[in-house]
């Protein structure tokens, strides 16, 4: 029997519950508390060796278990689909004790906020380059490629400027950030911010004000979430054991 692992936290008072009902895990499994060293891990017994399929219900169940402890403490979430043997998990936690403590120190008292920004304007105009009606299909093809490449470079530059502006606006409330730029043609910036719990309201207010300054940008702000972006625990697990 293997274990499905949801998250790791500092000592928990007990099993998580929502409105006094126990939180159910993947496929409706019971969630157990496994204590290893100074840590508490939320796990479920899991039949089979491979990861559970990525379905909406399973993803929501994983998220619900991790979120259920967020009121008490800030956990380090494991990546969805982490299935391991108990002794393997104990060995990992014991060997990585100091690193895990350091990670918990980083996220303690914080939550993750997410900001995604889409450019509201259409693709930037790119100046034409000696285009004539007499051009053959090859030259027209290259001119079209030139337009695409220059448009992409402009969007990338614009995304950098928007990311810098966002940092300027909410940087005071952000302890750590992970920003990715130009993920798709329109999605310019996807930022994850680690924010102290007591600063979340101020962070939101500041963001509301900032949004009014840039009506040409479309925002999606969400959170608070467990610090998925700042845990990176799955990567370490894979590096050490070659499994996930």
């Amino acid at each position, binding site marked *: 029997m293997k274990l499905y692992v949801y998250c790791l936290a500092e000592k928990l008072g007990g099993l998580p519950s929502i409105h006094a009902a126990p939180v159910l895990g993947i496929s409706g499994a019971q969630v157990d508390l496994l204590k290893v060293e100074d840590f508490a891990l939320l796990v479920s017994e899991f039949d089979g060796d491979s990861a559970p399929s990525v379905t909406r219900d399973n993803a929501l169940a994983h998220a619900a278990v991790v979120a259920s402890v967020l009121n*008490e403490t800030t956990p380090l979430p494991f990546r969805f689909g982490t299935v391991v043997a108990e002794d393997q998990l104990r060995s990992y936690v014991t060997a990585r004790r100091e690193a895990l403590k350091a990670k918990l120190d980083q996220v303690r008292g914080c939550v993750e906020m997410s900001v995604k920004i889409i450019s509201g304007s259409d693709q930037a105009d790119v100046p034409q380059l000696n285009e004539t009606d007499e051009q053959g299909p090859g*030259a027209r093809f290259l001119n079209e490629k030139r337009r695409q490449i220059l448009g992409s470079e402009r969007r990338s530059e614009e995304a950098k400027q928007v990311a810098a502006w966002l940092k300027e606006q909410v940087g005071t409330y952000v302890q750590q950030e992970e920003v990715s730029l130009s993920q798709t043609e329109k999605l310019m910036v996807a930022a994850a911010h680690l924010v102290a719990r007591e600063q979340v309201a101020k962070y939101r207010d500041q963001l509301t004000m900032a949004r009014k300054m840039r009506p040409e940008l479309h925002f999606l702000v*969400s959170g608070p979430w467990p610090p998925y972006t700042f845990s990176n625990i799955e990567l370490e697990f894979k590096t050490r054991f070659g499994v996930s």
Partner: protein
Amino acid sequence: MELSPNKPPTAEPEIDTSHVEEFVEQLSCVTNSLPPRINIDAQSVEEGLAKLVLTLIEFIRRLLEKQAVRRMEGGDLSPEQIEELGLALMKLEAKLQELKEQFGLADEDLNLDLGPVGRLI
């Protein structure tokens, strides 16, 4: 597990936007290009290998396009050379499109997540 009376509860997650459809569309593109978990069986290995090889070809093809555009902008190509280069790249794009269809891959499938470095394309 009871919440400590001295500790304020964390607010419920909220999603705040005036442009829901736009974000759903964009985030679907990102989600679709995330690498799926790899199951080692003959079929998935073959598909994964095809995806990896085509991603690398696509990456090189884009580099070639950029280089061609730079040379065209630099003015060191005659109109005949531009036409010839354009036609060659057009054929390369068409061939890659054909291979993608053969392996059932979409444009957004041809990418690699390089972790902290970002995405390949």
